[in-house]
């Protein structure tokens, strides 16, 4: 698989470490009521779809940026690559 890095262009997927579902960006609030329930869900449960999946890849042997790769788990085709930073900010993080 070739991941088209938004800053570096096409890179071999071997340069990356795979983390899993991109929902991991949305870390629950540890101070909230019932935080343990939210964290159980966050840490252990997955949608695991057959088809389009948004997932986190870390460019460990490259620029060490985290990417959100949208990939089809049935065909392995990659349809979109974003910087995880941008995705997190668009979701209201770091503001």
């Amino acid at each position, binding site marked *: 698989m070739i991941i088209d890095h938004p800053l570096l262009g096409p890179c071999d997927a071997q340069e990356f470490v795979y983390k899993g579902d991109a929902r991991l960006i949305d870390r629950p609030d540890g101070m909230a009521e019932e935080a343990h329930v939210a964290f159980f869900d966050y840490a252990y449960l997955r949608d*695991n779809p057959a088809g389009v999946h948004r997932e986190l890849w870390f460019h460990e042997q490259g620029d060490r940026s985290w990417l959100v790769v949208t990939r089809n788990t049935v065909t392995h085709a990659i349809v979109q690559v974003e910087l995880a930073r941008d995705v997190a900010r668009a979701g209201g993080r770091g503001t």
Partner: protein
Amino acid sequence: MRYSGFRVLKEALTGHKGWKPAWRAPAPKPHYDIVIVGGGGHGLATAYYLARQFRQHKVAVLEKGWIGGGNVGRNTTIIRSNYLLEGNEPFYEFSLKLWEGLEQDFNYNAMVSQRGILNLIHTDAQRDAFVRRGNAMILNGADAELLSPAQIRREYPFLNFNDARFPIKGGLAQRRGGTVRHDAVAWGYARGADQRGVDIIQNCEVTGFRIETGTCVGVETSRGFIGAGKVGVAVAGSSSRVMAHAGMRLPIESHVLQAFVSEGLKPVLPGVITFGAGHFYCSQSDKGGLVFGGDIDGYNSYAQRGNLPVIEDVAEGGMALFPGLGRVRLLRLWGGIMDMSMDGSPIIDRTHVCGLYFNGGWCYGGFKATPASGWCFAHLLATDTPHPTATAYRFDRFERGRMIDEKGMGAQPNLH
């Protein structure tokens, strides 16, 4: 029809006209006491033990394709019970004991071959870990033996003992481990279940559960609705997709694992060798092909085929351990989709839906578990209580912090 040497002789002399199909192809009935979803090793074994051990005869196995087309026919056929943790080792040892009597039990030649499995040691830390594991195995009634390099050299003289990075410093052997002909396991269980009245229904995909006031009353399938007193799901790599029909999200990711077979060679490998440090393991089939594999590809996949980097990695691991492999031609390679759980251990449990039961999360190691998994799932379905060796395989262990994490890797399925 019972299979025996006498039968083979008789058929040989009468033109092989007396053989009958090993199982029927019945049309689905409107209702069964127990419906098993998934005709892999685990689903078929469950049906077999339900009928044989728990006297349940109104049972159907629903398989979306053909039986044995999933992981049970795609794995590298290794059986062993060399686990460390309390929750696992008694279960896998129960499974190994069932393998030892399986062929007589279901009257089918599954080519169970206890040729032994050897995990190689390369460092002091690894030796400490393996000694501890061997002791845990012995405490649970399994066999384990620590071998010196000299002992290994006698059985595997062609290994590269002096690799600069991973010299062989010893090994942990389990002599009762070995290999089994995987398709024959599916066929043997199918035949045994069919003979005891179980309907095995192929080309029948489950597309939903009918749930009324919190109780599962049957399944929607590509061949219409089938009513059921209880439904047991054992669909391995498809676990998340199927359980989503019951509104469940599982502690599971589906990943692809590849396997490789070489051209046939004269006998060279007496047993199974694993080179964990180099991501490579290998055995030799009775046909002579070297059967080998390595790590999972490491990303979510339902593709039943992997990518080139892992093929390269496996080949490099193989060459480092076993330089003679370079002369051997690769015949085939393929992939299977595995239900990788969050702690690397399986689940055999009820669900929040009354009458709906789940068996999955087998990762890359569920073939060896087939007999015990079938037995324990049948036990749960028939008696509504977990089998004593499977009490730890609960859904709520993640919530309660009671993970069974052999490698101590945490909630990261591609590291187990």
